[in-house]
């Protein structure tokens, strides 16, 4: 498996570093055996694994919503954005108001909130539905609003918990392309949880394969066709297929 040469400079700092991190809940359930994982600046890391392997626990820890039982967790990102499986929009607020939300809460000046939100909506191709309410949009469009809301807070780390899982396959494929396109513009780091191995390989620089009972990392696989800085660069789909098969086998064996 030959990784395509990356055109980007090596990251100056790591956004998140898990070192021997474990998580045991108060009921005695061990969600995570010691885990080591690093997300470099501007890197897209996806996680695949069966339900209950601690994927979401990792994500929640990176987002500061949960803390490790033992081990060390260093988070250096200045600004995290969380994208959920559902669009998670306020049904009574307009697309624009929903997009401005996080900046508003963070007390960013009004004009700046507006500028960021409008820019983010333009990036996801929704500039002409700013005044619409979420229910007037399709599932894919709602997810775009959710992405725009995350972008509008100008994150250097995006935490994405199966963000496209609720979409139909067709829309889901397009959203993955969309994410790569946005990444090219903004170069945020991404921790991306998915159940789709193909999506994981397609989107990421590296794919973390996890197993359950207790949750642990089985292997970290470099993607043969990582997202390119240059949109024109060809991506090797044969190697991608091969990697998908390999990861599938690893998951089945784990």
């Amino acid at each position, binding site marked *: 498996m030959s990784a395509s040469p990356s055109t980007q400079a090596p990251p100056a700092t790591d956004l998140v570093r898990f070192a021997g991190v474990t998580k045991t809940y108060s009921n005695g359930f061990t969600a995570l055996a010691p885990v080591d994982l690093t997300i470099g600046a501007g890197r897209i890391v996806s996680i695949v694994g069966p339900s209950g392997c601690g994927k979401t626990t990792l994500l929640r820890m990176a*987002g*500061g*919503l949960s803390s490790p039982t033992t081990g060390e967790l260093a988070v250096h990102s200045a600004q*995290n954005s*969380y994208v*959920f499986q*559902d669009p*998670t929009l*306020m*049904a*009574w607020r307009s697309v624009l108001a929903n997009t401005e*939300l*996080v900046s508003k*809460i*963070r007390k960013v000046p009004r004009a700046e909130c507006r500028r960021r939100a409008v820019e983010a909506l333009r990036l*996801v*191709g*929704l500039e*002409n*539905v700013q005044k*619409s*309410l*979420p*229910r*007037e*949009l*399709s599932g*894919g*469009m709602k997810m*775009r609003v959710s992405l725009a809301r995350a972008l509008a*807070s100008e994150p250097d780390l995006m935490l994405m918990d199966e963000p496209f899982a609720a979409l139909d396959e*067709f829309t889901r*494929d*397009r959203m993955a*392309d969309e994410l790569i*396109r946005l990444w090219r513009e903004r170069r945020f780091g991404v921790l991306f949880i998915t159940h789709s191995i193909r999506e994981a390989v397609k989107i990421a620089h590296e794919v973390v394969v996890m197993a359950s009972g207790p949750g642990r990392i089985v292997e970290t696989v470099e993607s043969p066709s990582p997202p390119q800085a240059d*949109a*024109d*660069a*060809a*991506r*090797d*789909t*044969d190697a991608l297929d091969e990697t998908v098969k390999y990861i599938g086998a690893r998951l089945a064996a784990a």
Partner: protein
Amino acid sequence: MSIAEKTSTEQTPQTSRAEQVATPQAAARPKPPRKTPSGRTLLSFVLPPLVVLVVAVALWQALISVFGVPKFLVPAPGDVLAEIGPAIGTLVEPTLVTMGEAYGGFLLAAVVGFAVAFVMARWNVAERGLYPYMVLLQTIPIIAVAPILVVWLGPGPTTNTVVAAMIAVFPVTANTLTGLKSTDRNLVQLFAMAGATRRYEMGVLRIPYALPYVLTGLRIAAGSSVIGAIVGEFVAGIGGGQGGLGYVITSTAQQLLMPRLFLAVIAASCVSLLLFGLVRLVEVLTLRRWHESAMSHDD
């Protein structure tokens, strides 16, 4: 082959096959504004209940004629209609009295009910402490409490208002609390991660989210408060002032003035209906754009 295809897609993402099928612009074209109910749709709403009413009244009249039911037991629709003229003067005042008590009690219940739910949603310990007593308040037969209130507050509108409020407060609190506590977990997380204060979260997220629940509670309370006011009047009487519809109902029943009793009952229903309608109007105005419960479903 597949690589080449992939490459071309990457080069021109704006015109890829996927985008052509459903560009966000095309899908995002604003929907035509919802039509205001036309004459026909309005008729389709009004006609069915109207037909039922006419049939029911006709049946009522027919049964009385066929079986020769005496007027002092069941008045015919015609008798009730004929009573409107002579009775109207004696019914307006009691209707207004009952209205004042019921609506006052409703407002009191709305304010207290919301405040209690708010406190219970904000502090878990308050919920644990208060909820059993809210349930208790609801389970005590109001008719048993009314005499106690008469002793404490004296007979009259004040007591009746309090009885109305007591019976109407629980649905407001219970529904509001459910609404405030069932906010989307992920949205709550999002607010927390962005560093929102509890107050901001309440005002911007939880209260708007709870609004449909609050209004459902108010709708139930609208009916209850009128019941409360009339029960209060049954027990508390007129207390020196002008009696309400409850008083008219008891006194006309004792005198077997059936047509007038029927009119009093109809007036009480109207007091209830009007309040219910007002709440529903607020509900539709505030929620119709975003909540299923208030949308029109004719398209």
